[in-house]
């Protein structure tokens, strides 16, 4: 629908002109222009920006926890146990050992971020490797890899994680490892489905006709196109990851007390849920807000990263 390309009265100047160039002069500029335009699309979506702000706040809180927190998250004061929010200097109240809930949540941010980051880096990569290899190579490779995936999927996630933790020993690190080992199969399925639709496309045929081998095609041509749906799925899955970590913590197999992990805090507050509601509610709210942040971010990313957005 190229009709009248009305030039803006003021052509952009300086770095903006460089970032919006129709005809980039170098590889770097071409990538920058794409990134900038994607960012513009993303920034135009207020909900996605809200998600980004929440995640940024999480990162900020975990980086500067000692300065933001009002108390030592581990310091107990049995005289001030179960203080309601807003009283005696406890912004969000105190728990059954008189520890400041606000400070524990702030310090817990880094635990949450640690879990999220590690799972987000490892599980999708395993899934991507398995899924694209199965989808592209097909044949017996596909059969073997997908049956292994099915076996992992057939176990209830928490039970499988439990088995791993039981074998490896309790602790936050092993909990993350267990979550990763149970989280990759869905990514493998997504990556395989995407690969199957891409495998027969003409641009893959064209690169085959240049003599490229399977490894090169999978990594250089298929991965970039699977990435967007994987990234979106990862952000949407993060809420579940946080909850699984909390569940493991609750069973005594994840974060060990007194580490201020949000899930463990909720399970500790369970006993007081009727009379001292804040003990379980405050960390619950933190999980809710961060999960919401990841979901909003995921939705925004889906809109921006979807290659069909740019079709025709």
């Amino acid at each position: 629908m190229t009709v009248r390309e009305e030039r803006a009265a003021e052509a952009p100047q300086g770095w903006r002109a460089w970032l919006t160039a129709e005809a980039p002069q170098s590889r770097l500029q071409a990538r920058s222009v794409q990134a900038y335009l994607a960012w513009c699309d993303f920034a135009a979506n207020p909900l996605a920006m809200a998600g980004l702000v929440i995640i940024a706040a999480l990162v900020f809180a975990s980086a500067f926890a000692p300065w933001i927190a009002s108390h030592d998250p581990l310091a107990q004061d049995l005289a001030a146990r179960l203080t309601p929010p807003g009283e005696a200097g406890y912004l969000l109240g105190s728990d059954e050992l008189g520890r400041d809930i606000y400070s524990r949540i702030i310090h817990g941010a880094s635990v949450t971020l640690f879990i999220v980051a590690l799972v987000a880096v490892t599980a999708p990569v395993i899934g991507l490797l398995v899924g694209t290899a199965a989808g592209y190579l097909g044949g017996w490779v596909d059969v073997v890899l997908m049956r292994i995936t099915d076996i992992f999927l057939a176990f209830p996630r928490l039970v499988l994680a439990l088995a791993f933790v039981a074998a490896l020993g309790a602790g936050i690190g092993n909990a993350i490892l267990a979550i990763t080992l149970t989280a990759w199969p869905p990514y493998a399925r997504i990556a395989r489905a995407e690969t199957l639709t891409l495998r027969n496309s003409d641009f893959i045929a064209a690169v085959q006709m240049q003599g490229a081998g399977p490894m090169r095609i999978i990594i250089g041509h298929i991965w970039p196109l699977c990435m967007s749906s994987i990234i979106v799925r990862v952000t949407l899955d993060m809420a579940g990851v946080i909850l699984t970590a909390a569940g493991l913590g609750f069973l005594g197999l994840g974060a060990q007390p007194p580490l201020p992990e949000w899930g463990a805090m909720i399970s500790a507050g369970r006993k007081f849920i009727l009379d001292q509601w804040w003990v379980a509610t405050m960390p619950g709210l933190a999980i809710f807000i961060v999960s919401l942040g990841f979901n909003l971010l995921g939705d925004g990313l889906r809109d921006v990263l979807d290659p069909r957005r740019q079709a025709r």
Partner: protein
Amino acid sequence: MPMPEAPAILVQGLTVAFGRGAGRMTAVDDVSLTVRVGESYGLVGESGSGKSTVLRAIAGLIAGWNGRIAVAGEAVGKRRDRAFFRQLQMVFQDPYGSLHPRHTVDRTLSEPLLLHGFDRVEARIEAVLEQVGLGPAFRFRFPHQLSGGQRQRVAIARALMLEPRILLLDEPTSALDVSVQAEILNLLSDLQARHSLTYLLVSHDLPVVAHMCDEVAVMRRGRVVETLTAGAMRASHAAQSYTQDLLAASRGALD
């Protein structure tokens, strides 16, 4: 076989079948054709006639074929080596689907050069962009920033990167507007003269094939119905009634 007379492409008794058991379908049935060096050979037919399947079997994009395929006098197997791809390249039908959506023109064009260890990558890319009429301003664009005709020019440029002798053209203009089609067909003619290329063109559009090709094979339901020259086609000297029907349907009010 003496080398100078070796045809660019020789296909004998080519049969391609898809599926297994009861659902097995023969897409190409005992097709033979000979494309001489430097000529343009057309393969016409309607959808499902197997014309594109023949092309893909020659290109090595389909594994399950039987018969004999020889390119430049050398019989080829199911797996093709890199030397084969320096002989023969392909241009695909849909310019929207044949370029990687996340790769710049530069990446698309440099990939074959890097794979085959060519030198002077920069100079070659600029030269080929010039040849297909795009110029250096297009080098770092993404496919979605290009029109259909420009994309097809990039696809042609990519096919030329390895300096092949033979180009397989799979409906190279059917997705394009008439005026853009004329530009692309002219470009293909120019490139053929400049690099003395051999073309094997698949199309459903008889006027396009008559314009481009010297000799034409008409396919129907996986078989070659007849072969005739472009001149015979223009004069409607077809032996088979099916070819006559095709020709009659292709003649519009303006012809």
